[in-house]
């Protein structure tokens, strides 16, 4: 098997779409020569027969790599609706592998993976990689309801998982941040992917206790390889960095959480309409 090491745009057929409820779907592709993606990296994914709308590919973290690379999608808009309805045999274009990888776990620190909903994808890939090297991480996995915990069984096989739902329908009744606040020890190394608000809160918790934390940021992007400049992340030390080439995995302390109206964790509340 020849393994790709450089970025490449390939056309691959969909092998399988595994739907987990209406919202979440695992798409698995047939790539005989393989994709050498590492946990944390992403692909720009688009239906090869979409025509001119939806126009842009969508950034998706790899869930697995190799000859049957896969992604986990959550239905959010026109592009993901198409993906959720796709059928085996359908051609897709995959540009990748893109972005950086999760930093390797440090000696003497126990990895703690904190996932929110679809943010499980790069963390499950990472947990599998850790498992291969004999490391069993702690994991906290949360969502609004039990339906927002796709692939929880897969995670439980290789990590010590605490589940949390906001409505209490499964696991801890509350948020992952409540769970983390209780169990965060000084020798932890936190990896997190999920909604911006969740990651901002986790970054704050880790900073308070001087625990290293790495976040995987999701932002809109058009190209994924550093030319559209659509994915700036405000930082505390270097103006903007770009999530596609300088991320998506970023030291949480570098992110200027809350800097500027449109900074990551300040996704605004809906504007009120006066009655």
């Amino acid at each position: 098997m020849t393994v790709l090491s450089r970025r490449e745009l390939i056309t691959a057929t969909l092998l399988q779409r595994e739907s987990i409820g209406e919202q979440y779907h695992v798409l698995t592709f047939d790539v005989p020569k393989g994709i050498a993606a590492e946990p944390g990296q992403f692909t720009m994914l688009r239906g090869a027969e979409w025509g001119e709308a939806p126009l842009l590919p969508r950034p998706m973290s790899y869930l697995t790599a190799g000859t049957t690379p896969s992604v986990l999608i959550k239905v959010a808009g026109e592009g993901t609706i198409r993906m959720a309805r796709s059928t085996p045999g359908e051609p897709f274009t995959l540009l990748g592998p893109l972005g950086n990888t999760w930093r390797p776990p440090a000696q003497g620190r126990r990895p703690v993976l904190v996932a929110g909903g679809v943010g499980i994808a790069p963390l499950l890939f990472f947990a599998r990689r850790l498992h291969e090297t004999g490391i069993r991480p702690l994991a906290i996995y949360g969502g609004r309801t039990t339906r927002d915990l796709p692939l929880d069984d897969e995670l439980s096989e290789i990590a010590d998982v605490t589940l949390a739902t906001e409505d209490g329908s499964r696991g801890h009744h509350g948020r992952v941040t409540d769970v983390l606040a209780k169990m965060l020890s000084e020798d932890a190394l936190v990896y997190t992917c999920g909604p911006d608000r969740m990651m901002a809160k986790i970054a704050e918790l880790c900073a308070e206790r001087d625990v290293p934390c790495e976040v995987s940021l999701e932002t809109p992007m058009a190209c994924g390889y550093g030319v559209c400049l659509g994915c700036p992340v405000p930082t505390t030390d270097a103006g903007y960095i770009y999530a596609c080439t300088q991320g998506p995995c970023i030291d949480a302390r570098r992110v200027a959480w809350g800097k500027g109206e449109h900074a990551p964790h300040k996704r605004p509340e809906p504007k009120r309409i006066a009655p």
Partner: protein
Amino acid sequence: MTDQAVSVGSLTLKNPILTASGCFGYGLEYDDFYDVATLGGICTKGLSLHPRLGNAPERICETPAGMLNAIGLANVGVEVFCAEKLPKLRARGVTVIANIFASSVEDFVAIAERLDAESGVAAIELNVSCPNVKEGGIEFGKDPLMSARVTEAVRKATRIPLWVKMSPEAGDIAAVAKACEAAGADAVTAINTIRGLSIDSELRRARLANSTGGLSGPALRPIALRIVWELAGKVSIPIIGIGGIFTARDAIEFLLAGATAVQVGTANFSDPAAAKKIADGVREYCETRGLAAKDLIGIARP
């Protein structure tokens, strides 16, 4: 093999396919994909006198068959470009069109003078039509007198060929193009993006931090093609066509409408090798018909 070369004034391009400013970085991001020296040329990200951080996020969003952007001309500045990017482009034999932006005539001149001191800049493209910055930009490009003033001042500052990028929002684009021609422009590029707006109905807010953004992509194509068509009857300098070109067929339409060369922009985002594929497709179209690329220019015109 058919002849794919086209002439833009004194500059000969090896084929009529260029990449558009703002959609191709500095041309150094493509080593994994193909040799960009095979293109007719590349237009750099808009260069300003000093580095610019650009606008706050969100900067982009998708719209029907297109996208809005309000990047705000984030760039490394002309000095870093000359020191770090241009030598690499020169070494690779890339035909470089330096797109430049300023909010004053003096700064336009200063950037042009800096570029004039370097070898390896095939042309300068004046961005007088950016819709996403508070000063300069589109305010120059909407007004024939202001466009001519910038063109004339830069013309005096450098012997490098000058292209001027037209705003589709000028009331009378032909008047702007003619004023630039009279002021010494070697070509006009048509068109820059058109300002658009997208609102998130759940959040009840504009999707972009800048509220409005420039519309690009296939949605823009018929408008751009019409403007190239109209300008071809009004100016005698070459026209560089741009607007939603995604396939070789699209590029050929622009050539047939009167463009001498074309720029590929948004298509690079969904396929990094889009411009190369389009160049190959135009060559194939010519080969099967026994035509040279320059034979296509303006043929559809009455």
